[in-house]
């Protein structure tokens, strides 16, 4: 099915979110919609899906105009949507979830009854309202097999990893016969590995003749998967490019100026050890250990990048270092053990902390920018004396920081929750690095941010390093690890499996993230066979097996492009 959006304009008051946007999606095409957060991509898709009505313009399916007044109209027109936040019922099984809204009811056959000469003929009854679970299961299995989704229809959604939940959403759309599938920032919630899986599925879907609109602000992804890329900036289409277009050109189109994709930084000048973690162990929620006997050191003036697939203990590591989770082992800050201190005392001792989830852990959305800027220093001078707070000092300091860190907000009294992600992160950054820190611990510092904000955040982090702070970056995005790290530590299942230099090849790093030791990864990446490895006795059998199996998946994917 060919889908065309013609001259779509959508205004909110004085703001034009979509300004006469044209978009054509050919059958069997993966169309990427590239743009920064807030460029109007989501608005456009909400118009397409009937969640909003355009002020001008029309939508054409196979060259005939249609009206889409509600998601139901969109579904009937063959448009399926996978939202960023999934619309699934966690306590239902996959099969139950996919039937929601289109419940198939099984008809009942009541056999003929005969009482002597008196008889009731056989008949079919469908008003009993019994869900046809069997049929739903069959449908799920069939689709799952056809597109390689690997979904168990009887699994409870709450037990599934995010990546699989997303596939359940895709199946939901497919079962409603979507020929155009809209994926709204689908990789935002995925690990790199899950993202690769998603791309594979997208290609299968394309091969099956369906078209996909892929919304993203990540250059690498659109280059990897799209057939054509439409770039939107400030509500307008500013260009259409083939996927072979360079990073810098796409970024420039998206942001409206040339962007430094990789911050330039001088060679690190590591000084004394400022953070030393020794034998740190953290128990996991349900028994076992999340972090096992982990030790590492970070020197002043260097950035240690901790790479790893999400869920290998990174969150627990950060929270344990901040005293938010109970742990054993030692944490030395400039030689002083802080492992028995509370979170507050650790912050005071000189750790700057940028939490992984800025909206949940970093900010209070209902508080003003000014209040958020003092969240962890609110009871110290000059902001407070005794229990009395000095609102003037708070406002003044906030005004300065907003200017220094280029936070785009109308005033310091604006609620932080209404700022864009990039500006929210700048608020946290301003708060955490304006103290005199020994260590800066930043977890996923640019997740979900647009290119311009990433550039800013990275510059600030490098500036911290250059001022002698020991910086620890925890990130599951390889780009970020490469851009910032002076040294890379790779985490796998709660341990550091090895260290690598910042010029390590991506394939090798990928192997280490899958659990291979540094030497093994190097060997495998160099093309040696497992037999050679075993013969050389370089590593455990298990690690080799892991490394090989993981190596084949991402390697093959990137090879296709």
């Amino acid at each position, binding site marked *: 099915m060919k889908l065309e959006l013609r001259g779509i304009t959508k205004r909110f008051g004085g703001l034009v979110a979509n300004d006469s946007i044209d978009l054509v999606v050919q059958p069997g095409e993966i169309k990427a919609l590239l743009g920064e957060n807030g460029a109007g991509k989501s608005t456009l898709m909400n118009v397409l899906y009937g969640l909003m009505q355009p002020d001008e313009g029309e939508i054409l399916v196979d060259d005939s105009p249609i009206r889409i007044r509600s998601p139901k109209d969109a579904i009937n027109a063959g448009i399926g949507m996978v939202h960023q936040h999934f619309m699934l019922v966690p306590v239902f099984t996959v099969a139950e979830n996919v039937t929601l809204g289109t419940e198939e009811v099984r008809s009942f056959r009541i056999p003929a009854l005969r009482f002597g000469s008196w008889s009731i003929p056989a008949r079919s009854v469908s008003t009993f309202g019994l869900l046809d679970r069997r049929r739903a299961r069959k449908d799920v299995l069939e689709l799952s097999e056809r597109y390689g989704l690997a979904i168990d229809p009887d699994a409870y959604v709450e037990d599934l990893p995010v990546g699989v939940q997303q596939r359940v959403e895709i199946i939901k759309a497919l079962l409603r016969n979507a020929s155009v599938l809209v994926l709204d920032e689908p990789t935002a919630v995925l690990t790199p590995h899950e993202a690769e899986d998603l791309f594979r599925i997208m290609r299968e879907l394309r091969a099956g003749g369906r078209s996909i609109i892929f919304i993203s602000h990540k250059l690498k992804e659109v280059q990897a998967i799209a057939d054509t890329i439409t770039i939107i900036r400030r509500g307008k289409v500013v260009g259409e490019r083939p996927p072979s277009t360079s990073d810098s050109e796409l970024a420039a189109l998206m942001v409206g100026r040339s962007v430094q994709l990789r911050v330039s930084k001088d060679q690190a000048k590591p000084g004394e050890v400022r953070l030393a973690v020794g034998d740190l162990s953290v128990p996991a929620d349900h028994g076992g250990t999340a972090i096992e006997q982990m030790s590492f050191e970070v020197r002043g003036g260097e950035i240690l990048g901790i790479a790893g697939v999400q869920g290998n203990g990174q969150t627990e590591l950060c929270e344990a270092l901040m005293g938010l989770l109970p742990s054993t082992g030692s944490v030395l800050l400039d030689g002083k053990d802080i492992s028995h201190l509370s979170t507050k005392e650790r912050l005071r001792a000189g750790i700057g902390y940028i939490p992984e989830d800025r909206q*949940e852990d970093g900010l209070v959305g209902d508080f003003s920018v000014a209040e958020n800027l003092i969240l962890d220093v609110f009871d110290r001078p000059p902001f407070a004396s005794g229990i009395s707070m000095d609102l003037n000092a708070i406002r003044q300091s906030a005004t300065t920081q907003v200017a220094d860190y280029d936070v785009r907000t109308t005033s310091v009294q604006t609620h932080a929750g209404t700022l864009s992600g990039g500006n929210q992160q700048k608020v946290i950054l301003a708060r955490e690095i304006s103290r005199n820190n020994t260590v800066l611990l930043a977890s996923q510092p640019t997740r979900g941010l647009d290119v311009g904000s990433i550039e800013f955040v990275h510059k600030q982090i490098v500036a911290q390093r250059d001022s002698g702070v020991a910086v620890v970056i925890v990130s599951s995005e390889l780009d970020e690890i490469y851009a910032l790290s002076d040294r890379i530590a790779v985490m796998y299942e709660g341990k550091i499996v090895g260290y690598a230099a910042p010029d390590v090849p991506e394939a090798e790093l990928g192997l280490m993230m899958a659990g291979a030791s540094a030497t093994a990864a190097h060997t495998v990446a160099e093309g040696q066979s497992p037999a050679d490895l075993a013969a050389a006795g370089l590593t455990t059998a298990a690690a080799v097996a892991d490394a090989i199996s993981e190596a084949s998946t991402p390697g093959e994917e990137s090879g296709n492009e």
Partner: protein
Amino acid sequence: MSDQLTPAAPEAAKPDADTGGKPRLRLTGQMIIQEIVEGGPVVITILAVFLALVISALLIVFSDPNVIHAWGDFFSAPGNAISMTWHSIATAYSALFEGSIFSPATIGAAFHGGSIAAIFYPLSLTAFEATPLILTGLSVAIAFRAGLFNIGASGQFVGGACVAAWIGFAVHLPVVIHIVACVLGALVGGAILGWIVGELKARTGAHEVIITIMLNYVMYNLLNFLLSSTNFLQQPGQSNQIAPPIQQNATFPHVGGPPPQANVGFLVALAAVAGVAWLLSRSTIGFQFRTVGANPRAARSAGMSVERSWALVMLISGGLAGLAASTIIQGGGPPPPLNPNTYGTYGFDGITVALLGRARPVGVLLAGLLFGALQAGGTVMQAATTPQVPVDIVEVIQGLIVLFVAAPPLIRAIFRLRAARGAGLEAVAKGWNG
């Protein structure tokens, strides 16, 4: 960065968000208009009160047989039906007004040698009725702000009442000191109960709603028990559950005129409003409460102790409920001795007052005064109308106000206001998640 990058961005991304798509810079006058047009919380509240009065007017009309009869003759005498209706409503509501705010007749009387104090009598009565409501309202409100739903103001009230009553009748102290001792006793009595709740939640994670509801029953029955034995609070020689009257030294002095009238208790309430307002907006303690209430995870990451905040806010919340008890035990000239009906519905009315006041101290003060006025005027209304408009109509009005306040979209639909920036009770309702 070039101007092209400057985010118009957040609005475009979330057009349904609070500020979506509106120019942010406005003149003050425009802001006020916008507030009215969009139905900000203040406007919603006023409209809710108005709507509640309109609906209650219908009830008043329908309960008046004369009016019903007049409408039966509508076609022969339409003017009569309408004027009767108007008369019925006007009599009831003007009595409500005269009983709670001021009565023009008293001015005339004052000129002819009557009492000037009589002019202020209705207001004084309103303040008297409002006093405990403001304090229990504050109790619930401050807990709301820290993300806790204190259903237990009623039990904490009982705790404060027991202590205040005991100090009031059993201890002999000089006049001012005795008053202060009773007030502090009530404060401590309520605070201890509140603290138990906070501490249990902090240590075990038990939900405060469950604990407070259960503690209410414990306190009600403890009160019955204490009032059943002369070893504890029962008045010697009494078979009823009633405590001895408190000593004259411990009662609140009146502002003047015949009781019941506003007394020192009202000043206690005003001081509490000011204190809580300062605490929430200007102190580090209040900042912690608000952070914990708005986002406990961020509070924890910023080094605050969420558990200690819970314990502390419940201590204060309970103390405020205890203070409410002291205004009943020590005020109301002469105050009735402690009995199983003393706690009335003050604790639960506190929840409605806090909701209506949107958990803001000044809002609670105004909401408490409104409910106090309805109580004070209700009695007068019942006396002034024939056939009587029952005082219960006041409860109907209160209930309707809260109903409408709790449902801003309903008010907007009725008054055709544009969909507004969110944030009404949502912030408050977070208490359930704690």
